[in-house]
């Protein structure tokens, strides 16, 4: 039973009910309104996933354009300006609009199920995070349809390169405002997940019984709330420079470009772990399931994750070895960076330990997870090479760096996320992807990925620079570039197969019942697709692999559940939060404000101010009505088979 139930019960009984506020309570369960007003963590997770995959395809097309341009020397598929836009938008899109929200989709959908909760701690705040994320994505991409153009200053946006003096167009304003909205969305979501994991666990679900994916959600959320402020303030400073003529990065008045680099990378490096830790969590769920063994060394895997999170805040300057920080700082950051290899290596060995002696079942999720372990290791090795400052000053800004971080981001994060989609698809939709098509997409993606990025190691060591739109034919870079481009198109075909199969499966795939993989964690104990209320009876947890324990102690669990079901009925049934439109309205207000301040010219003067204020007012009205309507809900009553027997929208 979640917290709002009790506060609700406590609130209503002792005192006479206050006069109810006349505020619209949407009750639609289908149609557009139901999606805009949903507070169900599973629907919100699904929407995160849909938006993330859409932007993943957009970012993928941008990547293919880049590879088409670089396929031959002196090519002119793209102009230099278009090329700048492509690599900026590819990086920004993939990091903030594809991988992070896709992780967030799993946080939303899976994490509450894994801890035996009926929803997150603040369901409406969760909806607000989703819609603010969408608003940020719109602002960043609005440049495609605006004369100012899409952002073109790199995903790192180095000031003063991005100051008004060098890029007077609105492109950077979109980037600045969009990322600030995404920051608000990420922080709000992360706060919600932290409270949920710490406070909403089912009875018996101690911290050291949490599934590893949930643990990584918690650590990632802490990284988000502590690292996003740095970039948000950096963006605010850049925004002040661009909009109000301040001097943060104005060198002639004492501003220092190095400050931007520090602030950006204080965020930027933890961000790398924000991208990879959820992936490690997913893999730590999949490997035990398909090895039919518990995770090897659970506590050390968890502590390694936390250790990576801590160290992640102490290594940002390894992105700045060539800026001349001095010997001591460079040595210290080099050592700290190498130290991160230790907990990472510990995790790798624990995954191998999990596989060792297991009854391996080579299903598609397992293939992607094994691909993750192998490819992520290659990325990790080149990462340790970068940690050595002397070597890094040679590799800085070369294609070697591109090769490195695509091995950790595609071979690492993306492989694990694709594995996660396959793994949890039967739970989310009650259908299973065909093994043949799943494995085919894996092999095409795997081969395409390696053919694309392995040659880039050589390109980098041979001196090919990043972020340069073309190259001469006599540099010795022609063949590797051609191979990489062929690989990129292969990878594109693999991704296309993957998604075509997913869409087909969603509509026509083989139907499966509950728990098709013989899972170990609580999300598999409910029917698929899960009912709105998740658990008919809040589970009691007795062991780390909670559902595995349930399967082997059926009588004990059945008796316990019967008792708890009775107690819950006596306390008024299952509490469900009301839907609400106000988080959506608040996000729309933010969208209007952000668009006004980024898309309109300053000499539009009062129009700009009027629109920005309108946005702010809409946001405030949304927030006020949101708090006035209160966090109450309605109650569901189930019969023995889990069927709803009482009017779901009867108000209490």
């Amino acid at each position, binding site marked *: 039973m979640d917290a709002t139930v009790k506060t609700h019960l*406590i609130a209503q009984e*002792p005192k006479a009910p206050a006069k109810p506020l006349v505020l619209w309570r949407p009750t639609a369960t289908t149609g557009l309104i139901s999606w805009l007003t949903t507070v169900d963590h599973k629907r919100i997770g699904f929407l995160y996933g849909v938006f993330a995959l859409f932007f993943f395809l957009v970012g993928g097309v941008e990547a293919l354009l880049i590879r088409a341009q670089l396929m031959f020397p002196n090519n002119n598929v793209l102009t230099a300006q278009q090329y700048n836009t492509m690599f900026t938008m590819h990086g920004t899109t993939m990091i903030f609009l594809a991988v992070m929200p896709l992780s967030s989709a799993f946080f939303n959908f899976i994490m509450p199920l894994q801890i035996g909760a009926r929803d997150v701690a603040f369901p409406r705040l969760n909806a607000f995070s989703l819609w603010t994320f969408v608003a940020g994505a719109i602002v960043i991409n609005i440049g495609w349809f605006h004369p100012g153009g899409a952002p073109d200053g790199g995903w790192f946006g180095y000031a003063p390169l991005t100051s008004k003096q060098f890029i007077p167009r609105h492109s950077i304003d979109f980037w600045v405002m969009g990322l600030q909205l995404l920051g608000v969305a990420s922080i709000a979501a992360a706060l919600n997940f932290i409270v949920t994991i710490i406070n909403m666990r089912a009875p018996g679900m101690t911290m050291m019984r949490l599934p590893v994916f949930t643990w990584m959600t918690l650590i990632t959320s802490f990284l988000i709330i502590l690292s996003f*402020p740095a970039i948000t303030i950096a963006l605010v400073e850049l925004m002040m420079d661009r909009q109000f003529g301040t001097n943060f990065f104005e060198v002639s008045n004492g501003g220092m470009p190095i400050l931007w680099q520090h*602030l950006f990378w204080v965020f930027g490096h933890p961000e790398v772990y924000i991208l990879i830790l959820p992936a490690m969590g997913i893999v730590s769920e999949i490997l035990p399931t398909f090895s039919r063994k518990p995770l090897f060394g659970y506590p050390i895997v968890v502590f390694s994750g936390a250790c990576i999170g801590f160290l992640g805040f102490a290594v940002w300057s390894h992105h700045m070895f060539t800026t001349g920080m001095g010997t001591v700082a460079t040595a210290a950051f080099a050592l700290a960076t190498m130290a991160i290899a230790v907990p990472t290596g510990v995790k790798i060995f624990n995954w191998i330990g999990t596989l060792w002696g297991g009854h391996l079942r080579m299903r598609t999720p397992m293939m992607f997870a094994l691909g993750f372990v192998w490819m992520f290791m290659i990325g990790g090795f080149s990462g340790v090479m970068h940690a050595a400052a002397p070597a890094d000053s040679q590799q800085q800004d070369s294609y070697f760096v591109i090769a490195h971080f695509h091995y950790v981001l595609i071979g690492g994060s993306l492989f694990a996320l694709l594995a996660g989609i396959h793994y949890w698809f039967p739970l989310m939709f009650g259908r299973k992807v065909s093994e043949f098509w799943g494995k085919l997409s894996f092999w095409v993606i795997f081969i395409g990925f390696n053919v694309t990025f392995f040659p880039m190691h050589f390109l980098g060591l041979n001196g090919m620079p990043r972020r340069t739109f073309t190259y001469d034919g006599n540099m010795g870079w022609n063949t590797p570039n051609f191979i990489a481009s062929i690989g990129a198109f292969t990878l594109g075909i693999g991704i296309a197969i993957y998604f075509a199969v997913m869409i087909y499966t969603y509509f026509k795939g083989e139907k499966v019942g509950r728990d098709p993989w013989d899972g170990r964690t609580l999300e598999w104990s409910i029917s698929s697709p899960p009912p709105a209320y998740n658990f008919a009876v809040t589970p009691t947890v007795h062991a780390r692999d909670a559902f595995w324990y349930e399967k082997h102690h059926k009588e004990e669990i059945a008796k316990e559940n019967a008792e708890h079901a009775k107690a819950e009925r006596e306390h008024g049934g299952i509490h469900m939060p009301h839907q609400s439109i106000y988080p959506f309205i608040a996000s729309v207000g933010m969208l209007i404000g952000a668009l006004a301040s980024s898309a309109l010219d300053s000499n539009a003067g009062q129009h700009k101010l009027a629109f920005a204020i309108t946005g702010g007012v809409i946001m405030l009205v949304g927030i006020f009505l949101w708090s006035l309507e209160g966090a109450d809900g309605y109650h569901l009553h189930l019969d023995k088979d889990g069927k709803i027997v009482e009017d779901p929208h009867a108000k209490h």
Partner: protein
Amino acid sequence: MSSPAVSGPIDHHQDVTTSTGIPNKKLLMWAFLASDCMFFGTLISTHLVYRLYPPAGNPNPTEIFDIALTSFSTFILLMSSLMMALAVNAIQKGNLRSMRFSLLTTAFFGAIFLGCQVYEFWHFVVEKKMTITNSILGTTFFTLTGTHGLHVLIGVVWLMSMYFYSFSGRVGRKEAIDVETMGLYWHFVDIVWIVIFTAVYLLEYL
């Protein structure tokens, strides 16, 4: 979790419905304040870094600041924290009238602080000719203290909203957690001001 004390006395430090006993709202506010620390930390760092490398023609802070006025507004803000604590205490005992008085006083003190800040900004811009654009000191000073002022303003609006809302009959002992959460925010904004007052103002007089 099956037999909560539905009708028993309310324990404000324990919430039987959560795993840790800490109310969700309180935990959310603590986590948010951790995040807000980083926001202010970044702004304060920016100010302190730029303070070390003043360009030629940067105004001298001690010639600009009016330390007597700022000390007064700092004192007022600290006193508002006392009133905030009294407001939380009052509503936990169910004393609605006392809570209203304390909330109003807290907001009033907050408003005095904001008034001092508005005067200070006006004074700096008009009399001392330091604007947000004409020097790096102006840029970091106005951005940092302005961000803090915005936090105080949000706090005052929140306090006043709670004050008026309390007349609706929907605020009682059970809603003490809402006032307490607001109090956490208010105290945090005060503490940040102590840091800013030290790092931005007092440091210049060492």
